[in-house]
């Protein structure tokens, strides 16, 4: 008996690295930590270079570098601001509406601080990559015509006025979180905020010259596919990483994410095939992104059946929304940020109210009421849409006053690469 115990003790000591104790008594799990470090890398990869290529392939060659530039500059700015105070505003206690400055410059967080079963510093880093990609999504609305100074100013203000508070509401212990809203990986926080803001900014900027009749085709559809592939792979980090652990639910999140992407891709492909006569590459991978965005809020709750339903809805609805925004609303949301991300994020946020239910293979408990949940989800959607909208209009007004929004017609004609950044994309001699 005694030797057994001793052996156990010895074993335990050996096992200690796996169960490092934080100063406050909670433990860092090395497996969970390993996965979330990886997930952080994956989500950064989504923006750099994933989203950059996805968007970059869709514009004309004379504006390609400017799209990459926007992605890099936004990523750097968001990272710095995140550490300076956005993390604190989003995730410190504060009020129901917004956090406070108690964790500015990561005050009080060190190597031993723990958040759940991972280091808090890792949580800071993981969430930072979300704060990078969300404003970067908006790039799609303003490509080929927005001033670079305005891009920087808009992004900075937007992170403060939209991203930090909404994150606090939903994930930082704020009012929506208390109400029980389901938004696993950012249908509201990421896609709805970016989508709505993109739509309003595109409207304010006015269409590109030549819209809608004399626009050029995507300059490299292959690049769009490469970017979409990177987004797909990275999205495993985004959604399965949001579980903040390497466990069975993370695996389920990964799987439903993948299924939704696949079904949405095929749905989009077949609609396009039927409607236009040919299934195109840009189409199928746009379907992929729609499927990924739409499953995002639901990826912690639904099962494979739910994922198939979400993927199908995403492919179908986002396909038609692209036409509606540009055709009926005549808004040049150039790369369909609203139609794909905004609509997808909202759609998923609403669908999860049903699909989380056990009947659809979701993981909600027996006392789950789809209708009650739908009400909460709807409140979440309305609140996020309204707040993002109002704040975006204010930010646009500020940008108009301070920097102006749009380059001159000549600069637009020459292309932003040369006029704003002094470079040319392809010098093949």
């Amino acid at each position: 008996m005694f030797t057994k115990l001793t052996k156990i003790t010895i074993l335990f000591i050996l096992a200690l690295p796996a169960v490092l104790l934080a100063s406050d008594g909670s433990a860092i799990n090395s497996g969970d930590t390993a996965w979330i470090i990886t997930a952080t890398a994956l989500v950064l990869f989504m923006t750099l270079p994933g989203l950059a290529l996805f968007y970059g392939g869709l514009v004309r060659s004379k504006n390609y570098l400017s799209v990459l530039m926007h992605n890099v500059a936004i990523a750097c700015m968001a990272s710095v601001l995140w550490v300076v105070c956005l993390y604190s505003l989003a995730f410190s206690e504060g009020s129901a509406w917004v956090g406070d400055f108690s964790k500015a410059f990561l005050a009080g967080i060190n190597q031993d601080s723990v958040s759940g079963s991972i280091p808090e510093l890792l949580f800071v880093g993981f969430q930072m990559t979300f704060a990078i990609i969300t404003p970067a999504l908006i790039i799609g609305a303003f490509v080929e015509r927005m001033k670079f100074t305005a891009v920087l100013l808009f992004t900075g203000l937007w992170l403060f006025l939209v991203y930090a508070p909404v994150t606090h509401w939903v994930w930082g212990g704020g009012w929506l979180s208390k109400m029980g809203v389901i938004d696993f990986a950012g249908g509201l926080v990421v896609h709805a905020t970016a989508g709505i803001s993109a739509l309003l900014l595109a409207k304010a900027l006015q269409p590109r010259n030549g819209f809608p009749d004399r626009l050029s085709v995507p300059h490299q559809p292959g690049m769009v596919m490469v970017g979409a592939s990177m987004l797909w792979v990275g999205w495993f980090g985004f959604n399965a990483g949001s579980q903040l652990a390497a466990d069975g639910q993370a695996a389920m999140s990964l799987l439903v994410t993948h299924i939704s992407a696949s079904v949405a891709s095929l749905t989009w492909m077949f609609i396009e095939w039927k409607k236009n006569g040919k299934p195109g590459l840009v189409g199928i991978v746009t379907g992929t992104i729609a499927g990924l965005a739409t499953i995002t809020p639901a990826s912690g709750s639904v099962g494979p059946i739910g994922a198939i339903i979400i993927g199908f809805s995403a492919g179908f609805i986002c396909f038609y929304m692209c036409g509606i925004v540009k055709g009926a609303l005549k808004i040049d949301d150039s790369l369909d940020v609203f139609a794909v991300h905004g609509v997808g994020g909202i759609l998923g946020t609403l669908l999860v109210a049903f699909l989380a239910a056990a009947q659809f293979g979701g993981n909600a408990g027996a006392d789950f009421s789809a209708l009650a949940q739908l009400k909460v989800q709807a409140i979440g959607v309305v609140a996020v849409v309204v707040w993002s909208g109002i704040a975006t209009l204010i930010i646009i007004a500020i940008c108009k006053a301070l920097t102006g929004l749009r380059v001159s017609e000549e600069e637009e004609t020459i292309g932003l690469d040369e006029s704003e950044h002094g470079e040319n994309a392809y010098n093949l001699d």
Partner: protein
Amino acid sequence: MKLIKAIIKPFKLEDVKAALEEIGVSGMTVIEAKGYGRQKGHTEIYRGSEYTIDFLPKTVIETVVEDDIVAKATEAIVNGAKTGKIGDGKIFVLPVDSAIRIRTQEKDSEAI
């Protein structure tokens, strides 16, 4: 000497080259171009928006030949380039005053 400028469908380049070589024309310069004519362009649809592609890929072949083989050369080009479908292209013949081979400074008929 004449400059024969033939605008053809790109995938016919090999055939035209072969046809020209057969009649002894073995110098030519080839340029990628885009053409506009009776052959209508096409539309491409991305994410529900239609884009009209007016200009179609064409290849321009330029070869300078002696006056006496212009007819044979244009015939060879026609044979090589013809598919019988709209968009097969045109051949234009332009006068050339003189020619020089850079390597040797040979002139005119010696140069081509």
